[in-house]
């Protein structure tokens, strides 16, 4: 039997949930499905920083890659519809809606030419994690220094009245643990992953999901074309919604684990009130308006795409009531 081995470019440590909880199980499922005719190898050291991953894939530095769409500002704007504020209430709904929307409209975007996208996913809800101070009401954010990872989160934080400080992940840890920032926006999973748990005193949840990031998983087009029909079918069987569901599980489990550690440390969990969430939504409306304008400029019906994404989110929300007589 001929065995094809594909290299997966990776920029995260092997124990990160994206690698161990999404990429690895996905690759293993396909290996098994093909009876071992298609194998994957996850590279242990990165060939470039996260924003370089898509171009590395296009240049065939590896066969399969993954990355964060928002790391290449302006490049994947249409794909990133789920990144808008309050779009993704949980990682299942966000991932499923992101992928289903892409399946319906993505071919026209042309944002991934040269690659074959097999999955998109979102991360779990970020909270406002405070080392100093406490955020019970939206107005409590006023004057707090919050570490953010990129300009969109930075924009969100300044619209909500906080002063964002943009720092790379390696310095985020320092910033939080030693007081350069009062708080940080992260899902509970990441708080624990980056070793920030000991310094957190309170965590404010924002129901509805303040923001998320669209991750992509893709083959280089030539690598994809080199597969046999059976191999491609096996990949497709475990990709798309398969990847979205894996992501939902992985992030939820990661959050459960992280929250257990945080609770153990005596961290207080607070939820933002409904009125405050509504107020935040109102304050963040401009981001949506801007996205619609960008869509229009690119010749797409942004309203229709947004409506479809919202409909898909409703279909897959994790808090949907079932077994109820209507």
């Amino acid at each position: 039997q001929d065995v094809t081995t594909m290299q997966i470019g990776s920029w995260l440590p092997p124990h990160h949930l994206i690698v161990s909880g999404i990429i690895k199980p996905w690759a293993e499922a396909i290996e098994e499905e093909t009876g071992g005719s298609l194998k994957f190898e996850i590279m242990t050291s990165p060939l470039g920083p996260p924003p370089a991953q898509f171009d590395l894939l296009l240049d065939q530095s590896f066969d399969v890659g993954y990355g964060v769409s928002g790391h290449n500002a302006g490049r994947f704007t249409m794909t990133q519809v789920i990144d808008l504020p309050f779009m993704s209430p949980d990682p299942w709904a966000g991932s499923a809606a992101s992928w289903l929307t892409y399946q319906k409209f993505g071919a026209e975007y042309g944002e991934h030419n040269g690659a074959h996208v097999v999955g998109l996913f979102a991360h779990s809800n970020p909270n406002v994690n405070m080392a100093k101070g406490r955020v019970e009401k939206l107005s409590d954010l006023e004057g707090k220094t919050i570490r953010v990872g990129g300009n969109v989160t930075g924009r969100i934080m300044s619209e909500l009245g906080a002063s964002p400080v943009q720092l790379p992940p390696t310095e985020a840890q320092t910033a939080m643990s030693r007081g350069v920032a009062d708080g940080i926006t992260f899902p509970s999973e990441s708080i624990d992953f980056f070793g920030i748990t000991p310094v957190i005193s309170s965590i404010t949840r924002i129901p509805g999901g303040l923001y998320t990031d669209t991750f992509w998983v893709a083959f280089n087009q030539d690598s994809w074309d080199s597969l046999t029909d059976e191999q491609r079918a096996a990949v497709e069987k475990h990709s798309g919604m398969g990847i979205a569901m894996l992501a939902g599980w992985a992030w939820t489990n990661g959050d459960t684990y992280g929250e257990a550690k945080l609770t153990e440390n005596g961290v207080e969990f607070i939820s933002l009130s409904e009125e405050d969430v509504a107020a935040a939504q109102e304050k963040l409306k401009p981001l949506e308006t801007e996205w619609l304008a960008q869509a229009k400029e690119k010749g797409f019906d942004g309203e229709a795409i947004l409506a479809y994404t919202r409909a898909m989110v409703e279909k897959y929300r994790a808090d949907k009531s079932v077994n109820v007589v209507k």
Partner: protein
Amino acid sequence: MFKTFDRICLALAWLSGGIAAFVMAVTFVGVVMRYLFRAPLMGGFEMIEIGMGLIVFTALPLMVLRRGNIAVTILSDRFPPLLARGATLLGDLIGAVLMGFIAWRVWLQGARLLTYGEVTMELRIPKGLIAQGMSVLLAVTAVSFLVCAIAALRRAEGLRTSGTGGL
């Protein structure tokens, strides 16, 4: 002609020094702003990032011209003069070809980034333009290597690399 090129390289290096001073000021002001006014310097992160890239590429031509490349000269210092000259010439020519090649590829990468419309996150500067700026400076660096090669052909002395560099 060599004089003019030398001046161009020096002017670029001055520009590089200016950017370094700017990065220093932006970093310092960012800290002060955060503590005194509890407000970060908007776009400071990116100014430092872009500034860092420009510091390197604007200083490269003069660094090469002044033979500031880090090299190990323990063996080549003992070469007979003709061989030493040959080795230096070889290094300069390889350097020129490599820099020219890299300049070309970086230019194309810049063009690629321009077609995708990729911009820096905060200041929204097209990344492709920054890349193509770097490409031009790399091309100037290739010329620097050529000038060094010509100098190596002309005379044997005074063309050793300094051997230390900046660690």
